[in-house]
């Protein structure tokens, strides 16, 4: 008879009306609905980012200039670390889809193995993000704002007419000592030497940093270095406004605080999703080991958390493009 389901499905599995219009279980469909609403949240955040950036009259920091450090290495590796994070998350998405595939074959050991790898990938991503945040918060040298107009020649011969309010960047050796010096630490002092100034720290970890060169336009376009007496001119024109790294009040990367705030909020919100995903994955992993799904005769729970995990990867694909690349 037309209009009758040819296969009997128990009432507990079906919806209240005894039918399933999308041919998916209630739980799976609700996971999709949750993901749609969560995607709208992230979409709203990235749209807000786009709005603030489009309406900003100051230059906006560039991803490959801000994010170019690797743990434990000196030198510049633009975007390599973020690319690595992206790759880790994509790979953990792949191991997740392999776990789902194993579940469809009722292959318990396969599910357990691939779930374990997914969890490890998620933890690696979280660790990478922690380092990224730490680096962003500590910064790479800091900046100060000019108190007066000054004209300098850079090392490659370009002449810059800088105005009051422009930012100048220090290297990380000098900035590292400039921060305690500004805070009035008794063991750090400023010394005038023959060819410039240096900061000297005395005490247990005594060392010194000389003002070799300052950098212009570090995060907003191709940077230019200024050294020698030209750097001294910039140093002498400094105001009391210094910024080291980033926090909720100021940041060295751009004139706009919105840049740091969006970084914290968007990557933080995403990181929290990854964290929740790892916790949920661990729960499902343990349930799989205990044979809960084997007794149920289906592994749809793995599929449902898989949907969430892929979604987290999907969001990162967009964050990567709009925060780091464009």
């Amino acid at each position, binding site marked *: 008879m037309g*209009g009758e*389901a*040819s*296969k009997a*499905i128990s009432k507990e*599995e079906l919806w209240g009306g005894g*039918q*399933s*219009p*999308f*041919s*998916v*279980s209630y739980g*799976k469909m609700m996971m*999709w609905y949750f*993901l*749609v609403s969560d995607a*709208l949240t992230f*979409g709203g955040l990235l*749209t807000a980012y*786009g*709005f603030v*950036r*489009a*309406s*900003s*009259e100051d230059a906006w920091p*560039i991803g*490959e200039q801000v994010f170019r450090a690797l743990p434990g290495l000196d030198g510049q590796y*633009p*975007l*390599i670390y973020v*690319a690595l994070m992206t790759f880790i998350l*994509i*790979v953990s*998405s*792949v191991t*997740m*889809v*392999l776990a789902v*595939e*194993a579940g*469809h*074959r*009722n292959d318990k050991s396969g599910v357990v193995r691939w779930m374990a790898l997914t969890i490890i990938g998620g933890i690696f991503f979280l660790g990478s993000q922690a380092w990224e945040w730490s680096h962003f918060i500590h910064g790479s040298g800091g900046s100060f704002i000019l108190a007066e107009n000054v004209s300098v020649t850079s090392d490659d011969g370009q002449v810059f007419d800088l105005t009051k309010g422009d930012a100048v960047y220090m290297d990380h050796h000098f900035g590292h000592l400039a921060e305690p010096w500004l805070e009035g630490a008794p063991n750090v002092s400023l010394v005038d030497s023959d060819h410039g100034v240096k900061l000297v720290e005395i005490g247990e970890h005594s060392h010194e940093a000389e003002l070799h060169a300052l950098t212009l336009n570090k995060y907003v*376009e191709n940077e230019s270095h200024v050294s020698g007496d030209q750097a001294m001119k910039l140093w002498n024109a400094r105001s009391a406004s210094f910024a080291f790294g980033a926090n909720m009040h100021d940041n060295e990367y751009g004139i706009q605080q919105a840049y740091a705030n969006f970084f914290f909020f968007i990557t933080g919100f995403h990181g929290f999703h990854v964290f929740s995903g790892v916790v949920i994955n661990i729960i499902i992993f343990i349930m799989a080991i205990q044979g809960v799904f084997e007794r149920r005769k*289906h592994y*749809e729970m793995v*599929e449902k958390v*898989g*949907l969430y995990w*892929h979604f987290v*990867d*999907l969001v990162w*694909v*967009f964050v*990567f*493009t709009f925060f780091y*690349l*464009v």
Partner: protein
Amino acid sequence: MERDDLIVNDSYSLNAHHSEEEGVKIRKNIWKVTLILTILTTVEVFMGVYFKRSETFTWSMIKWTFIVLTLVKAAYIVLVFMHLGDERSNLKKVVLAPYMLFIGYLLFIAISEGFGHLMSFSTFH
């Protein structure tokens, strides 16, 4: 007309099992998509490092390339990894249509109003 609201065979999601041989095929597809996603990401990173941003036509084309590559990646993740491509078409529409509608509209007004704000700022200040 075929009724859409009834389960006529084994297509109900809880019964979505497949055999060992089908599994081999599915896994092959998964690795193929992995390769595609990796290549696209690598291309994006190289483009991001190589091209310097500026107010030129070239840069705006590169920006659009990034966006298109991202949408291609997103499509692979949603349709293959999340299996939305294998779901019934009404579920596909329920998930994708509202999102595209709202975000497309929101992006359009936010970005164009953002530029408008900037223009009026630079005109009147």
